[in-house]
């Protein structure tokens, strides 16, 4: 990034640059290479599936386990399916997937762009007249923006499966009964809220990773610091944004 473009509110300025870059060129004048978008999209989708699966199955299982222990006391074991379905679709799938992507993809964005800064690769782009936001940031943000909703849906499914395994083991619920109950509990409101969060989280994780990468100090330590900052800020931001969503949803009666 050009040093003179770093304003006092540079995080806000950077966000504005990304939004302008996305909107002003949409999509015919986007200046990044299709290969870059495809590479990033593949990396944050197919290659992220194993870890997203493991984490979300376990989160669904943990929710079911905690719910079962308490609900069985009241003879309401079947409501474990409701608990898991609502908690996963409304909160946990989006949050947990965003945290995983912050640690995995957001960190990778920060490290890659910080290394490019150190190696003068970003300068080489700017000398050609290519803006780093247009050429490097936008494909990453768009990739995560597009992939996160898909990962969210997948995370919901794996979370429900995790809950189903525990419910079947602890409560002798048949998988069919569990899934029937889950489908009844799931509403478009819960799913829509979770989906909206996942899109916001995806864009935020990508922008945060790119921001810290492009503003990193130009040495090896700078790469490490940028990566750490990207992960920490992204995770905190996920929680803060989720709280804002909760307040707004409550105010709207959703």
């Amino acid at each position, binding site marked *: 990034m050009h*040093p003179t473009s770093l304003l006092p509110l540079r995080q806000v300025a950077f966000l504005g640059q990304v939004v302008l870059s996305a909107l002003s060129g949409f999509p015919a004048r986007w200046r990044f290479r299709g290969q870059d978008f495809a590479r990033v999209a593949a990396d944050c989708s197919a290659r992220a599936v194993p870890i997203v699966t493991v984490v979300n199955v376990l989160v669904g299982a943990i929710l079911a386990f905690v719910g079962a222990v308490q609900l069985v006391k009241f003879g309401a074991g079947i409501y474990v399916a409701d608990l898991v379905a609502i908690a996963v679709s409304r909160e946990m799938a989006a949050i947990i997937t965003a945290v995983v992507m912050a640690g995995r993809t957001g960190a990778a964005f920060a490290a890659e762009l910080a290394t*490019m800064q150190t190696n003068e690769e970003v*300068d*080489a782009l700017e*000398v*050609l007249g290519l803006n780093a936001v247009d050429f490097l940031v936008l494909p990453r943000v768009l990739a995560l923006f597009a992939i996160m909703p898909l990962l969210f849906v997948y995370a919901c499914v794996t979370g429900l499966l995790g809950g189903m395994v525990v419910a079947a083991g602890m409560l002798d619920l048949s998988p069919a009964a569990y899934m029937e109950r889950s489908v009844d509990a799931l509403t478009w409101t819960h799913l829509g809220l979770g989906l909206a969060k996942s899109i916001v989280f995806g864009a935020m994780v990508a922008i945060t990773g790119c921001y810290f990468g492009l503003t990193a100090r130009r040495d090896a330590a700078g790469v490490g610091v940028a990566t750490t900052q990207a992960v920490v800020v992204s995770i905190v931001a996920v929680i803060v944004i989720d709280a804002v969503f909760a307040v707004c949803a409550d105010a709207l009666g959703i």
Partner: protein
Amino acid sequence: MAATLLDVQGLEIRYGDRLVQRGVSFGVERGTIFAVMGGSGCGKSSLLKCLIGLLEPAAGHVLYDGVDYWASDEAARNRLRAGFGMLFQSAALWSSMSLMENVCLPLELHTRLDAAQREHRAREVLGWVGLAEFAAYMPADLSGGMKKRAGLARAIAAEAPLLYLDEPSAGLDPVSSLRLDELIVSLRDRTGAAIVLVSHELPSLLAICDDGIFLDGDSHAPVARGAPRTLYEESSHPVVRAFLHREEPLTRPAPARARTERASSAVDEGPS
């Protein structure tokens, strides 16, 4: 069209309150190799950044064919950028692209060649620097010298009339360094391009440069103008002489082993 491609007038470079250089003025004509000399940290690379649009000067003008780069809008700057190529000190090859893609990107942005023509041109310039068979390689798979040559290929691909080379020989062995010098001279002869060279390599400076400027880090100003060979032979400025004569074989300290051998032979010869 004027012979002077680049005209630098009264440039002042600062990082915040810290003065780096001031009063930097020079012109670079077509077909010349112009040296920017000076000790480490005197502001050579910062000067280069001002010339290529990465660092805005505190004062002064950078004129390309009479057009002031820093007074121009972004569209005009983009047109001016098409007029120069740049080899960065680290080569700065884009690590996610193959050599072919690295060389093709400037062609895509600054020429009207179609994809097949771009690929043909990229193979041609990679051939000039001896890397034709490495077109599909990624930068991480190349040695330091090969990266430098690939960076040079990328800089010259669009046939820009002005090339900036930031320490092209740094980190290369003497043979590779000599080969790169030959490549730079043949490039100048073949294309008629003007070349601005930032370097510490005295043999290169003396051998290939036609003109130059010497920046002093203590006074924050240029202290000499002229061809490195002329400055080497005629300059009486102490900073210039210290820089240009540091490689003088007669004044270079002998290696420890040679000193020991000389001392022991003197002892041996003494009694006889």
